[in-house]
């Protein structure tokens, strides 16, 4: 009866930003990124990729509530970097990794179909 519509889970409402950035007021080089309509799929790969970055002192994400369709990614970096820089870097690296994966998969598929 009062259940939220199914599309609420993946359609960003009009007038809302997909990603909003909020700097920490107390700690330098710390910030939270609120990503609307995303879940563990993006949250977890982003977090793990951030952990590979030596400048990142802390990276974590949470899904505050199962019916609030957003995740909060928190990043704390060393002084020579910034949360925003680390965030962009992580996304770029993941993007390149997926490009590589796609090419590797296609090459393997080509090899496999030739075998027949």
């Amino acid at each position, binding site marked *: 009866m009062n259940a939220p519509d*199914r*599309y609420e*889970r*993946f*359609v960003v409402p009009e007038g809302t*930003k*997909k*990603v*909003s*950035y909020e*700097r920490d007021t107390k700690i330098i080089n710390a910030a939270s*990124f609120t*990503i609307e309509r*995303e879940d*563990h*799929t*993006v949250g*977890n*790969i*982003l*977090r*793990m*990729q951030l952990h*590979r*970055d030596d*400048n990142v002192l802390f990276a974590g994400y949470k899904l505050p509530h199962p019916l609030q369709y957003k995740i909060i990614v928190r990043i704390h970096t060393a002084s*020579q*970097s910034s949360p*925003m*820089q680390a*965030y*962009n*870097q*992580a*996304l*770029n*690296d*993941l*993007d*390149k*990794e*997926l*490009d*590589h*994966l*796609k090419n*590797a*998969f*296609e090459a*393997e*598929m080509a*090899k*496999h*179909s030739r075998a027949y």
Partner: protein
Amino acid sequence: MEGVSYQRFPKIKIREVKDDYMKFELRETDASMANALRRVMIAEVPTIAIDLVEIEVNSSVLNDEFIAHRLGLIPLTSERAMSMRFSRDCDACDGDGQCEFCSVEFHLRAKCLTDQTLDVTSKDLYSSDHTVVPVDFSDSAGYDVPEQRGIIIVKLRRGQELRLRAIARKGIGKDHAKWSPAATVTFMYEPEIHINEDLMETLTSEEKRSWVESSPTKVFEFNHETQQVAVVDAEAYTYDEEVIKKAEAMGKPGLVEIHAKEDSFIFTVETTGAIKASQLVLNAIEVLKQKLDSVRLSEDTVEADDQFGELGAHLRGG
């Protein structure tokens, strides 16, 4: 710190490919990537499924919504889905989902005129687009009785009739499971099994045999001629630790060491037939790329932060 990259270069090895099934190894990446791919394959790769049904006549024993639900669950060939539009953001038809860019129309007319029960199946659905049709299972499976093909929607007795119009749309599994192209997608860590040969030699043949048999799946084998124990199928291991417990119970802890390789995964992908298994993996990679691209920071956020940064520096006495 520009130019530093923490990118990985994963390796893929395909073991087996069929139309709706494949098995491959994914290496040199971590569980987050494997799990993201699995989650995207199940819930976010788009397919086409019947979403709107207008019933003209229904005198069957099943009620209208029951039939509408059954129609929705029929897998339709969805190679087109990646290039189609979602009807909610289709400009050509104001999102009511009745144009060539975002929908496909189906018609079904069936009436039973004999004393024999008439099976209304997915074969009775007539599509307006020959690329989007109910999935045909008849050639892949061994059992093809000429009459008994297609997915049964309803059975009709003499005089009963079903006539309807259905609209199929693009969607994702997150919205409703009928849009999920995946029957099963699983991955496992590749196990690494080391038998301590010195300790193994202290066992009698009878003990070796009973230890081998303690595994619920056939991972080890006892060779009667050489009286040796060997690993025959490491991947059959289900991480149940039965053999480890058995070794301890026999007073031989450390007889076998089993590690899960944290950067190697074995994927099994099975589809509903809506798209090919290999295409499902490729589409999942593409969808994940699009998702990551959509979470990039917008220009105005970056600018707002730059201004805030200067202001902050002022306040701090900069």
